[in-house]
């Protein structure tokens, strides 16, 4: 399949370029030759320290998170057969926020905050699917197409509930903790930790979902048509749910509530390369990573030395895309 490889290579080159840019730019610009030197042969200079200790871990965490969010979005969109599904829209990020902020409020440290976020994201996705279990549990294959909007709306409502709880937590939180909480909420990559976990999860989840690509294309035709074509629809759905939830949970644990990457990236890629999941899924992993690295670079540089939360940049990209998708479908 030469086309898939061409697309993959182009996106890999784009990813490398995005990572290079994010290492070179910031409150202190580093020339390309110097960058190569301090990256591959660190010499203890200020530039080397900036790249090795600040920018590289941050860029890697951003890439892992972006890839995970994009692939989670793509998988949820197949699961719900709806291009509007996204970890943030579906309330998973909100659940993670409640978990993480709750831990912060109790004065917990790094690992517990991450645990809170991970648990909150899993609990929230689990809850959405329990609310709509009629469509997804048991052997029922009937009701084609009508269950998905219900599930999407259940997610949106749950997200609203999480927002209310987050407001409550912010109201009762002591002054000193509020800034950290607000940063977490808007997507915070400054901690720059968890990059390795995010990368490992990204690789494992992409490799687990990729061989399903052909079956996922069939599932997009609806559960009955897919089962008639020999796809074990219930099993595939369960696997999709587990992979999408895990990807979301790891992503929000690494970087806080970064929204809309899971919506924008699959949508843009579908327009560019089509909706063949065999090509789309790995492309999402690469393009999602590259997009978040670039968004983070913008967030760090536009008002340097001040930093914007990366979630702000992705929301500015994501909300118009969501509305365009929604209004385009209503025509």
């Amino acid at each position: 399949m030469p086309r898939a490889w061409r697309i993959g290579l182009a996106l890999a080159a784009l990813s490398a370029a995005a990572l290079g840019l994010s290492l070179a730019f910031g409150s202190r610009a580093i020339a390309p030759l110097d960058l190569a030197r301090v990256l591959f042969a660190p010499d203890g200079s200020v530039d080397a320290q900036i790249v090795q200790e600040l920018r590289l871990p941050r860029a890697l965490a951003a890439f892992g998170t972006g890839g995970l969010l994009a692939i989670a979005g793509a998988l949820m969109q197949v699961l719900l057969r709806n291009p509007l599904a996204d970890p943030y829209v579906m309330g998973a990020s909100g659940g993670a926020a409640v978990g993480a902020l709750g831990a912060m409020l109790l004065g917990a440290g790094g690992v517990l905050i991450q645990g809170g976020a991970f648990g909150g994201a899993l609990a929230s996705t689990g809850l959405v699917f329990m609310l709509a279990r009629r469509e997804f549990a048991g052997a029922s294959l009937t009701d084609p197409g009508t269950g998905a909007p219900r599930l999407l709306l259940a997610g949106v409502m749950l997200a609203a509930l999480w927002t209310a709880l987050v407001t409550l937590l912010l109201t009762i939180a002591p002054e000193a903790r509020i800034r950290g909480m607000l940063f977490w909420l808007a997507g915070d990559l400054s901690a720059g930790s968890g990059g390795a976990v995010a990368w490992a999860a990204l690789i494992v989840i992409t490799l687990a979902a990729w061989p399903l690509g052909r079956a996922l294309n069939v599932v997009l035709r609806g559960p009955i048509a897919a089962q008639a074509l020999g796809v074990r629809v219930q099993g595939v759905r369960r696997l999709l749910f587990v992979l999408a939830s895990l990807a979301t949970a790891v992503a929000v644990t690494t970087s806080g509530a970064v929204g809309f990457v899971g919506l924008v990236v699959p949508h843009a890629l579908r327009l560019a390369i089509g909706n063949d999941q065999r090509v789309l899924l790995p492309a999402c992993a690469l393009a999602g990573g590259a997009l978040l690295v670039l968004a983070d670079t913008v967030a760090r540089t536009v008002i340097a030395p001040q930093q914007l939360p990366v979630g702000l940049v992705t929301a500015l990209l994501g909300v118009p895309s969501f509305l365009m998708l929604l209004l385009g479908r209503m025509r």
Partner: protein
Amino acid sequence: MNGVVLLDARELDLRVGARTLLSALTLQVRAGELWCLLGPNGSGKTTLLHTLAGLRAPALGSVSCLGLDVASAAPEQLARRRGLLTQSVHDSFSARALDVVLLGRHPHHDRWSFGDSDDDRRIALDALVAVDAAALAARDVTTLSGGERQRVALAALLAQQVPLMLLDEPTAHLDLKHQIGLLEHLHVWVQQGERAAVLALHDLNLAARFATHALLLAPDGRASTGPVDDVMTDAALAAAFDHPLHRQRVDSRWIYLPG
């Protein structure tokens, strides 16, 4: 006719909730036969087709397809023996019509096979030609009309290359020319090799013209089965559809006139 039995349903009971749609249906579909499924709205035509396809368990009884019990068969094995055309598919995502037809080749790939072969592409293109939709190959399915979409779905079913086709209202949304074209195609198709088709239809005249056999679902859960002329009598149809109706011979063909 004494062709091979492609579909064998025994003592089938279908229930939805507390309502019994069908009781004690025994049906054998042999090679070369074109069965049409007739019955009023809500009489269980779709439920019966899904049950025959093995996608829904009957309350009682068993179905086997070319000797394979559909309840216990692996889905991928079943998908190489029978295909199902569902009622209108809702497309949320753009896709080329040719790619949708290529999905019909899915059962012929093993789990780890990744790409589509040149054979797959040739079969898919032939299928599009067969339903007079070759010109739609590169079109986006979300921009197609209802009838065009229906023909693309039919092409996907043809590309699946199964001996037994189950079709849920295949003529819905089709214009006159394509209705006749489709039924003529099926009529010829079942006579080539060991093949058969079962289709739900609403048009009695088309059913009488093209089908070899008929299955009439009555509201009381009793179904009558047999050669089309025996099953489609004025009295049986009028009772099943709860509407007066009579048939008359025109040019050696039965024409049905609702009262």
